[in-house]
């Protein structure tokens, strides 16, 4: 039984008397507020500090910095388009693979699995979510790359007569957009899964049981009750995975191959924004360093845009699910 407090009484209690914790309460509120605002301060700090150090590159290269793909530090030519392309391609591959798999696993854990099995899977997923990306990179570089080279080349041979596929899947050295995307997808699966799982757990048991009681199969209950209820959260989980994929540095630096180029062949070597920074920032100086920091600024802006779009999407889905209820 729930007792609803009288609004007037509750309002009275909210206003503490001057001696009794009113001042302490205000101090605590200020402390908490400052901690919250720190997030804004750090974000502003990132934007200001990095843009300031990147400015020499932005001002000397001008618009060419964003619209050309020639990156030659020796000649002072800095065009980032190839890196942007690489980042977009590999994160798209990663998300396309990881999202359905992750949501399916999360559904399995919350809807189908026996409670004990679910517990085991949850623990495994939590532990694996914590596996550092550099370890995936180590495995990808030393173990998986030679295997992928064989697979990719056999696949490229198999589709060499088919027009569109022939362009997308060509010869490979093992280091490629696809290698980076594949390993990235494995890496973000536990992350998306664990968030999706938490989201799916918030589905009210009564809604689900109601659907089942009306004769829905497990899948129909998932489709008609569970997914509509949690779509916003699942989009959020996927977007977190996307952000992780776009910004992932070390793993990508190890398996993408370090050759900035815009090609349709997903099995070809490429380069991404974070990986070129990781490889070169420590040994760079002058305009070159500014150009690398500028890449960081672009990555920062890009991920912020992705997140803003994501939040918009989440808002739309939340409104829709409220309307349905």
């Amino acid at each position, binding site marked *: 039984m729930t007792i609803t407090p009288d609004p007037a009484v509750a309002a009275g209690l909210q206003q503490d008397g001057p001696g009794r914790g009113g001042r302490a309460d205000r101090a605590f509120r200020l402390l*908490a507020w400052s901690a919250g605002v*720190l997030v804004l301060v750090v974000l502003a700090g990132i934007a200001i500090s990095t843009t300031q150090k990147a400015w020499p590159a932005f001002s000397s290269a001008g618009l060419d910095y964003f619209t050309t793909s020639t990156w030659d530090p020796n000649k002072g030519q800095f065009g980032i388009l190839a890196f942007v392309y690489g980042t977009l391609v590999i994160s798209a591959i990663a998300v396309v693979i990881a999202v359905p798999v992750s949501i399916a*696993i999360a559904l399995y854990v919350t809807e189908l699995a026996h409670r004990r099995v679910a517990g085991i899977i949850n623990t495994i997923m939590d532990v694996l979510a914590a*596996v550092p990306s550099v*370890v995936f990179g180590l495995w990808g570089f030393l173990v998986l790359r030679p295997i992928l080279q064989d697979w990719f080349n056999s696949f490229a041979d198999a589709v060499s007569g088919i027009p569109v596929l022939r362009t997308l899947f060509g010869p490979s050295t093992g280091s490629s957009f696809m290698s980076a995307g594949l390993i990235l997808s494995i890496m973000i699966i536990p992350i998306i899964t664990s968030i999706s799982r938490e989201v799916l757990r918030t589905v009210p048991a009564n809604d689900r049981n109601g659907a089942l009681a009306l004769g829905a199969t497990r899948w129909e209950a998932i489709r008609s009750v569970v997914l509509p209820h949690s779509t916003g959260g699942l989009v959020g989980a996927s977007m977190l995975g996307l952000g992780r994929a776009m910004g992932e540095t*070390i793993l990508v630096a190890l398996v993408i191959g370090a050759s900035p180029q815009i090609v349709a062949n997903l099995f070809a070597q490429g380069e991404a924004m974070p990986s070129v920074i990781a490889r070169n920032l420590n040994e760079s100086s002058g305009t070159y360093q500014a150009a690398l920091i500028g890449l960081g600024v672009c990555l920062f802006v890009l*991920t912020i845009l992705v997140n803003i779009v994501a939040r918009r999407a989440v808002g739309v889905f939340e409104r829709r699910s409220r309307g349905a209820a």
Partner: protein
Amino acid sequence: MTATLSPPAPAPSHSSVLTRTVSTRRRVVDKVASTLMTLSLLVAAIPLAWVLYVVVSKGASMISVDWFTKNIPTNVSSSALAEKFGAEPEPVIYGMWPAIYGTLLITFMASVIAIPLGILGAVYLNEYGKNGRFARVLRFFTDVMVGVPSVVMGIFIYTAWVIRFGAEGRSAIAGALALACLMLPIVVRSTEEMLRLVPDDLRAASAALGVPTWRTVTKVVLPAAIGGITSGAMLAVARAAGETAPLLFTIGAVSEIHYPPTGQNTALSTQIFSNITQPGGAPIAWGAALTLIVLVVVLTLVARFIAGRFAIHANAAS
């Protein structure tokens, strides 16, 4: 009313009912969907198990007393080259203590900075700001900051700290600052999610006893959510401990043990990265990977254990 929320119990199986009353098409669709969900588990589990297996099998031979006590060898590549060209290879003593210490030190400092601030920030969002305009803006930007790549945090500290302090800029402190920037929004959001799960009845009950809000927060709300908060914070710590990108430009490089938080340092993750491509460095990379994974897994499991313990306490208290 219990203070912690447990997941809803799964409904009893009703497959026997399905086979009798539901059309074939719907039953097939249901079976296909269930099978796909089960198979997806394998898609994720096989590569992940593969990674763990390879790391354990290749890294285990490195683990010895030397590994935890000696400095990092600097003659690995010269020894490997000597062996390649038929000369007598120098003996290599495989140690990793400086990097193990560095990882622990940097992660600890980052946690000390980020976790209290993150929890306080979450308290503001959920207990004071609620759905007000400013809180919504703050929540939005915290989400945005969660999405900011870790390498950007490294670049930020590089531009704001390392360049400013020149030769002395690279240090464990700089690395810890970069990791703290990474952890802060994660802790804020995970803590806020947990605070939101605390039933409002508890707050109302506390307020009804005349307790000021800040006492309610520290004595009722936070203890009720402590399991989830700890779990979330520990996951942030585990993530930070494994990060490489924020440390690349901020901590420098040493191969000998360096205890103070100032001055250049090293970490397990950066050791893995730098040894992968070095001739003869692969064993070091695998050993460091195993050490890092064990560290991170222990952190995660301890988090789960603590979470379980505190959840029970909160349950009993209510």
